[in-house]
């Protein structure tokens, strides 16, 4: 699974930056074609949902997806499936 | 022949029901036309209540009562408010025990309330006695029609009492 931000919907409020427990979202710096500074992803493979959703068969965490007022955050299947290298942080 | 009949009394005597029963008798059982109207509003509750019926052999166009030719008056206040200005050629049936005044027109005194209280044992059927008297005194509808209309309109279990009251009214009206 891969975390994606739909830049055609994102309005740049950065609520995802505020709530992600893993610090995956960072405030962006560049204006996109719609005149919005969308957040950028920092090592999204750390997202627990990306890694473990298939294993648990349900959404894990998902707070960014729920709080995103603009329905811009979702996960997409990656094909072909490639297991991510996991960095465990303490 | 157009007849305009006005009923008045006090609230609780069944004045409006009397008008509805008469209209029903004419419209459903005598093959005539009838329009029934009444006074609504707060003044009709405590004070004088009034209901009217227009009966005609032809369809009734103008539906309001302009100049009643028949009155049925069951209270002094009803007389003062709705009966005192009756035309000379009108006919008035008065509950003799409840109305002190008398009109300038032809007047039949019907002791409906005392009959209802006394011989019939239920004051509540005084209006039916009055209707009976009205029918035989004026012939505005037939006896058969009014009997059926009364039976349609009274609560279940009171049919016999009401028919008795109606018959007593017929007698009083014939004598008047």
């Amino acid at each position, binding site marked *: 699974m891969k975390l994606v931000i739909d830049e055609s919907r994102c309005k740049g409020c950065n609520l995802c930056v505020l709530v992600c427990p893993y610090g995956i979202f960072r405030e962006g710096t560049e204006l996109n074609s719609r005149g919005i500074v969308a957040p950028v992803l920092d090592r999204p493979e750390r997202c627990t949902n990306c890694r473990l959703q298939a294993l648990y068969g349900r959404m894990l965490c998902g707070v960014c997806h729920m709080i995103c007022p603009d329905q811009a955050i979702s996960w997409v299947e990656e094909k072909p499936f490639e297991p991510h290298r996991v960095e465990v942080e303490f | 022949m157009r007849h305009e009949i006005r009923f008045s009394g006090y609230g609780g005597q069944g004045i409006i029901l009397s008008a509805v029963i008469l209209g029903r008798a004419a419209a*459903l059982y005598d093959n005539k036309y009838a329009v029934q109207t009444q006074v609504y509003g707060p003044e009709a509750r405590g004070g004088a209540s009034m209901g009217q019926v227009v009966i005609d052999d032809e369809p009734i*166009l103008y539906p*309001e009562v*302009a100049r009643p030719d028949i009155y049925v008056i069951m209270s002094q206040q009803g007389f003062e408010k709705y009966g005192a200005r009756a035309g000379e050629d009108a006919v008035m049936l008065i509950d003799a025990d409840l109305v002190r005044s008398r009109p300038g027109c032809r007047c039949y005194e019907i002791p409906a309330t005392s009959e209802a209280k006394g011989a019939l044992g239920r004051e509540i059927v005084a209006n039916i006695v009055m209707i009976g008297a009205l029918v035989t005194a004026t012939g505005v509808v037939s006896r058969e029609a009014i009997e059926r209309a009364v039976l349609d309109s009274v609560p279940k279990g009171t049919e016999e009492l009401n028919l008795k009251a109606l018959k007593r009214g017929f007698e009083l009206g014939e004598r008047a």
Partner: protein
Amino acid sequence: MSRTEFMQGNAACAEGALAAGCRFFGGYPITPSTEIAETMARRLPKAGGVFISMEDEIASIAAVIGAAWTGARAMTATSGPGFSLMMENIGYAAMTETPCVIVNIQRGGPSTGQPTRAAQGDMLQCRFGSHGDYSTIAITPNSVQEMFDLTVKAFDLADRFRVPTFLMSDEIVGHMRERVTIPDAVDIQRPRPLAEGSLPFAAGEDKIPGFAPFGSGRAVHVTGLTHDERGYPDTTDPEAHDKLVRRLVAKVESARRDIADYEIVNPGAETVFVTYGPPSRTVEQVMRDHPDDSIGHLRLRIVWPFPEFALKEFPNAKVFLMPELNMGQVVREVQRHVDQPVVSIPKIGGELHTPAELVRVLEAHR
């Protein structure tokens, strides 16, 4: 088979609604319409319908519109003060093309006025009362039998044209009792369903979109905002608004020959009464009492959309006389369609014009 009853106008209206398949009534008590709500409260639950006494008239018409969108035939009944309260949502029903029936048993106004007396003072309000431009249908019965028959008709017109349809009766007809014949069944015409592949607010030649009530699986978005054929708000484009509002007006106005319901007596007459509702009965009385071919009568059973072509059916008319139970409302519509003098005969206070009053006016204008 049918049954004959001696019944009040308001009760006959409720019977008409039940016969037409009305299965939802939302209302609020108000004199002189209350007997309609009372009859519906008694009868609807036994007919598998819903009666609900709402917290006010605004809520009543709102609930009726909500129920109508589930596909139920729905109705409310009120009188002047409640009708005024309903105005905003009546505009909503017009904008969203919601078929529903609103009965107004008119009483004397303005304000609380004469609760127990008759008037026809809401005839312009029912045409123009809500803000913005729209067109609706207003029906004016003059007898208890018509309270039944025309209530049935109101539902059919509401469904066919997808407009709020008014039964503009009054205290006289609402409260009087007369003989009424109630058929066992009446023919009813429901709205044309939304065709497969059609957009929910796209209309063909008749300018009336097909109807997809909630639950049809069409995911219809209904909004009072200016919307496109998909039903989506489009509130700033002048063309979108122009197209929608012109269609809403035209779907009724262009069908007015089809909708029209009137009676003509003595088309060769020179003096012509134009009436609707109970004053028509006084005119009929005058014409029976004074038979005269030079007196004509145009009696409207449907006032809005106004059938101006009916006035042309009196080619010899020299004057039109219009008795109304108001200070002269629909008379303005007559005036703008004819060249002859039009005399308003207003009467307010709650009583019907007497035959003698109309005879006096008749003599003054011949």
